């Protein structure tokens, strides 16, 4: 016996909805977020970034995820003809995928950015650079956040 497809999908949707609701009730702070790849492709407009030419420097083992130093450097002469336009950083497992996007140009002299970020848990990060010729390059890094014993409650 098979149900009409419209009805079947309605039931499935309701079941899915109830599941999502349960998840939402259990973990109100973790709504659905775009995946890491989706976030990267959103930045590049669908283009697949080429690996290489980007350095993503972050400690592989982090003692506190609240303040993690991260540096992104892109190989580029940073001239009018050939420079980096934007550098973005995305994460895999924070509530939102975006960390930072920098806008720069030849007057920056060097395509390098340092900041400090939050890591909700161990995860992968991807840095993407948009070059002045419209191409994209990327680098990724995996970070382990160790379990802290003495967190303030």
């Amino acid at each position, binding site marked *: 016996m098979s149900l009409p497809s419209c009805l079947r999908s309605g039931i499935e949707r309701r079941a899915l909805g109830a599941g999502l609701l349960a998840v939402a009730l259990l973990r*109100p*702070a973790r709504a659905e977020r775009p995946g890491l790849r989706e976030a990267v492709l959103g930045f590049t407009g669908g283009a697949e970034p080429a690996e290489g030419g980007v350095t993503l420097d972050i400690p592989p083992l982090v003692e506190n995820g*609240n*303040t*993690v*130093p991260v*540096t992104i450097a892109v190989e580029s002469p940073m001239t009018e003809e050939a420079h980096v336009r934007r550098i973005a950083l995305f*994460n895999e497992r*924070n*509530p*939102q995928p*975006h*960390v*930072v*996007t*920098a*806008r*720069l*140009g*030849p*007057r*920056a*002299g*060097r395509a*390098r*950015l*340092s*900041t*400090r*970020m*939050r890591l909700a848990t161990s995860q992968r990060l991807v840095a993407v650079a948009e070059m002045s010729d419209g191409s994209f390059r990327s680098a990724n890094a995996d970070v382990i956040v160790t379990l802290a014993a003495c967190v303030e409650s």
Partner: protein
Amino acid sequence: MARVLINLPRTARRGEVVEIRTLIQHVMETGYRPGADGVVAPRDIITGFTCVYNNEEVFAAELAPAIAANPFLSFSLVAAESGILAFTWTGDNGFEQTETRSLTVT
């Protein structure tokens, strides 16, 4: 006014690439964190930063809640001519602060 630390050399040679480091006091409340009463604190973050060198933007950044409290940003610029650098942070709840520093190019 939030406290700000900006580190850059006072003088540079023409064409030299100068490193700039900035820190600003800000909680960067993510909007995901429940307080002691269980109520999630609303998002309150710095969302934007610009560095304008003699009226031309040389570096800008969009910040997400994943940036740590008291945001640190380090970047560089080419010392082209003596002048003023203006650093502006903008954010939620109408946050806006601008600091200026002078750079002498020899």
